[in-house]
């Protein structure tokens, strides 16, 4: 199709067609549609000036092709936050219709209080709070807050990231339910929460060392961890048993990586 038009120097038309096709056909066909438009520009010097900008014109619509899952959804919460606290929004992302806001840790309480108390938002229900560990990032720890509003029926995810050893502000003052969630994040990730009334381990034994959900923590625990809690045979015996069981599952690589036991 584009070959018929090739000899014609008047450039506006072919790129316009290419742009039209690019918008109509599925994204996969787009690179092909854009390519034939470019070659005619090379033999005809006068059109060369016009063609490159025209060829680059179809490029901007390319980002929307990205992923239907990442498409933004209208969110009253984000609109209002943009108005009231524009500098607190570091990043807004979407996945499958769910909005996620990243805020600076120092402004977390201010943002959450705004979300909870604003008459149009009323996020009165802290559905979930959890931590995350990204060892390769500069600020490796994250705390995620999943908010829900019972009267308004909408959801929002708020995230902060923390440097190693930095404490997140505790939100127990806003939602008492955060108490155990924060204890769990402390227990499993070693994230501190400043202002928490009673920050102790919750799921692991009190005298446990290490934080199991950190990525460097081996799946089967550190050597010696089991000794006082499992009295079936020696520790060596327990490791050998686990290793055999996991090998049978086809997870040999995993065992070698974590490297617990030698037997």
């Amino acid at each position, binding site marked *: 199709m584009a070959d018929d038009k090739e000899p014609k120097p008047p450039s506006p038309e072919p790129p316009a067609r290419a742009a039209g096709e690019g918008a109509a056909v599925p994204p996969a066909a787009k690179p092909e549609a854009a390519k034939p438009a470019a070659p005619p520009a090379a033999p005809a010097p006068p059109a060369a000036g016009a063609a490159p900008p025209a060829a680059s014109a179809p490029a901007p619509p390319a980002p929307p092709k990205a992923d*239907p899952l990442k498409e933004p959804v209208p969110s009253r919460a984000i609109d209002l936050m943009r108005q009231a606290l524009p500098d607190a929004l570091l990043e807004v992302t979407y996945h*499958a219709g769910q909005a996620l806001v990243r805020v600076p840790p120092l402004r977390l309480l201010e943002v959450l209080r705004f979300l909870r108390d604003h008459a149009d938002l009323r996020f009165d229900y802290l559905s*979930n709070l959890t931590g995350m560990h990204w060892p390769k990032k500069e600020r490796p720890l994250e705390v*995620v807050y*999943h908010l829900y509003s019972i009267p308004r029926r909408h959801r929002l995810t708020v995230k902060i990231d923390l440097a190693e050893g930095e404490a997140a502000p505790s939100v127990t003052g806003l939602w*008492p339910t955060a108490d155990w969630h924060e204890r769990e994040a402390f227990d499993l990730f070693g994230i501190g929460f400043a202002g928490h009334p009673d920050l102790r*381990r*919750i799921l*692991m034994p009190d005298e446990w060392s290490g934080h199991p959900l950190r990525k460097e923590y081996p799946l089967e625990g550190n050597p010696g961890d089991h000794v006082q809690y499992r009295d079936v045979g020696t520790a060596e015996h327990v490791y050998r048993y686990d290793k055999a069981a996991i090998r049978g599952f086809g997870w040999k690589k995993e065992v070698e990586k974590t490297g617990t036991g030698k037997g």
Partner: protein
Amino acid sequence: MFRTEEMEINMGPQHPSTHGVLRLVLQLDGEEIRAMRPVIGYLHRGVEKLCEHRTFPMIEPLTDRLDYVAAISENLGYCGAVEKLMGVQVPPRAQYIRVVLAELQRIASHLLWLGTHALDLGAMTVFFYTFREREIILDLFESFCGARLTYNSMRIGGLYEDVPRGWFDRVRHFLKIFPGRMQEYEDLLTVNRIFVGRTKGVGFLSAEDAVAWGVSGPPLRASGVNYDVRKAIPYSSYEDFEFDVPLGAHGDTYDRYLVRMEEMRQCCRILRQALDRMPDGEVRAKVPKYIKPPAGEIYHVVESPRGEQGFYIVATGGEMPYRMRFRAPSFVNTQALPMLCRGRLMADVVAIIGSIDIVLGDCDR
């Protein structure tokens, strides 16, 4: 001589009425509870850590073992979360069958709760009656997927197989006999003076406290807060069905009992509608053989018999999740126990724990 100091005693982790390995450290003044400290973690199996080392389809059997009393709700929530993450549309027939399974599961779970709750309060008979009906449901599940407790009944993208021939008729038969059986339980408990005396006005939970403490499920609705995930954020085509969300007026143990009883009737309503309108067609969407969701994260919530069951998955484009978090309703509801028990008598603790209906496998993960 009187000794008037307060006493600290342990209830659990092996106390028969704590429904698992829940330990409550009670501070008592005579028989009155001054303070309570729940201690959990005795059943912590590190499922979230384990999930980071399993592929997505391999995680579903693990979800069975969280809330082992209502495994199908966990399956439904987990599969729904992964499907949302991948943008997969489940065929309508599979969605409807999932609703049938989930509602049968809700009835089975409430029946288990009813039997044990009444047993804790000294009414032995109800236990035998409810287990008789629960048995019918477990038989239905067994003929559907071969298991009676940990079902692994769904697959990402739909179901493994359609239901066996005649299965819907058996569900209809159950729906025919169940309302009469419900009447039997009600006759035994609803106006039973001992039961009412043990539960009415006990373990009061106000609506504000319930929301602030994140309580969900029947305890939240018994306090008069209208929040049912099936209505608020419908999933698996719950928006197609007509049903009421029963609400309580006082937020005491007796209201929590009434709400669950009414919920079982509403389950029957949903089941009848689902069976009547059951669509034909495939039961599994086209999903790739190796499931690798795109990088992103999702928080998917379903209404399990115990409350708001959340699934938070962070994927980085691999075949295993980077992070998997289960928002367990039992975990959050247990947190409200000290508030419910303060100032009550020791014997009321048993009634209150029963009315919160926690499963420690869900709580400790």
